[in-house]
């Protein structure tokens, strides 16, 4: 089933004189988790910034089309939690409201903290939390925004294996049916979370094959190793070409 197209980006992207993406096309479907896979330095994060309308360290020639009436389009989850150290956990979750001078919805923040399995830490400062807890607060902050599209820039790469696995499961549960664009260099998390998987190779975005029952539930799934091998091989090829 093809979902409604929410966002499309096409054009070329270069930094100084180096072409990162040439004549590429990216289509984002509503309610799908799209992952852009690629090695470091191929322009994954730059592409994400471009989509978000942020300043990029290069030039883009092309079009970005967005089909949404929602005034809150993007939320962002980065590799680092980016929690403000002087604000309590609840206030960090409500950061968007603070910045927009809106009334703080503490009840909603509490509910989201509970959803990310963090309770009784509302008044604590981020410094008192573990890396995994901090990233869960960042997830709650992202969900608090209720935006049309969630942008994730390698959000789990700084976590240890167990914490990473827990937060990936939580994210999959809480971001179900939401439109997510994630960039990563980790093929395992790409296979476990994505409805659509794209690879940056040879300055183009190429769609990678995924099983019909996607996203995959776990690495124990019987066809996981088959798709993992395929993805790894494509990544290796992309690396050689570059």
């Amino acid at each position: 089933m093809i979902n409604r197209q929410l966002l499309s980006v096409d054009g070329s992207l270069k930094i100084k004189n180096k072409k990162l993406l040439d004549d590429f096309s990216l289509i984002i479907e509503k309610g799908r988790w799209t992952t852009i896979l690629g090695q470091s330095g191929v322009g994954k994060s730059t592409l994400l910034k471009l989509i978000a309308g942020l300043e990029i360290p290069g030039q883009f020639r092309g079009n970005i089309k967005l089909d949404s009436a929602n005034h809150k389009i993007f939320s962002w989850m980065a590799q680092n939690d980016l929690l403000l150290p002087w604000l309590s956990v609840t206030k960090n979750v409500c950061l968007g409201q603070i910045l927009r001078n809106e009334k703080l919805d503490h009840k909603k923040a509490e509910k989201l903290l509970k959803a990310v399995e963090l309770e009784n830490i509302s008044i604590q400062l981020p410094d008192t939390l573990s890396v995994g807890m901090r990233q869960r607060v960042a997830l709650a902050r992202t969900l608090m925004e209720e935006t049309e599209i969630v942008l994730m820039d390698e959000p789990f790469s700084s976590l240890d294996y167990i914490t990473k696995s827990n937060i990936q499961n939580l994210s999959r549960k809480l971001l179900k049916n939401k439109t997510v664009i994630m960039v990563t260099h980790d093929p395992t998390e790409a296979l476990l979370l994505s409805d659509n998987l794209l690879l940056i190779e040879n300055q183009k975005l190429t769609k990678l094959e995924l099983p019909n029952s996607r996203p995959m539930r776990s690495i124990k799934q019987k066809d996981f190793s088959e798709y993992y091998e395929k993805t790894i091989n494509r990544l290796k090829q992309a690396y050689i070409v570059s």
Partner: protein
Amino acid sequence: MIKLFKFITYILIFILIWWAIKFLSNTPDFILPGPKLVIISMFDNYYLLFSNALITFYEIIVGFILGALLGLTTGIQLIISKNSRKLLLPFILLTQAIPIFALAPILTLWLGYGIWSKVIMTMIIIYFPITISFYEGLKRIDPMVVNLTNIMGATKLSGLFKVRIPFALPQLSSGLKLAAAFAPMGAVIGEWVGSSKGLGYLMLYASGRVQIDLMFSAIIVLAIFTVILYNIVSFITNQLTKWDPKSHLN
């Protein structure tokens, strides 16, 4: 309580060293008076010291507040405008390149013997550490935090006041503490160059009449005030940066 005990211990050690130097070197009182003589002088001249100290303290506090406000405003101006950086940064450096002793007579000539020449001197002395520390703090924000706040819909004003300035507070607090230690220097230099009141004036007056014990008394009163001012500023900045463990290393 422990802090008070430590403070009293330091003072007692200082007095002991002072007394030991005086006793061992057998220096005459008109060159180095002993602690006892200075303490007696402080009691004998308490009104003279108090009335002159009030003027100097007033100059320091007004100069500190105005200099801090000017430094904070400049720091913000520098971060929000590229043109301001080009125009103001060389000027800020210039305020430090000219020796303060060279400026003092000019300021006295322009502003007279009243408090304002001393207030301006104090402002000039503290302007640089406050401006530069604040500006450096404002610059050091993680660009990803700026991206995040922009995506969340922060305005320039809310981004500045709710994110950038709080991030800069630990560095600003270092600048303010430095300023608190330097501020009395500005006022006293101003008084040395041209005044008829204040602790600086009293030091010169006592020196001219070989009342070295009185001169030492004035220095001690100024030092005590500087320590108090520094601690008040430290207390306030510590409250503002409670969240930053690096600002509270023991």
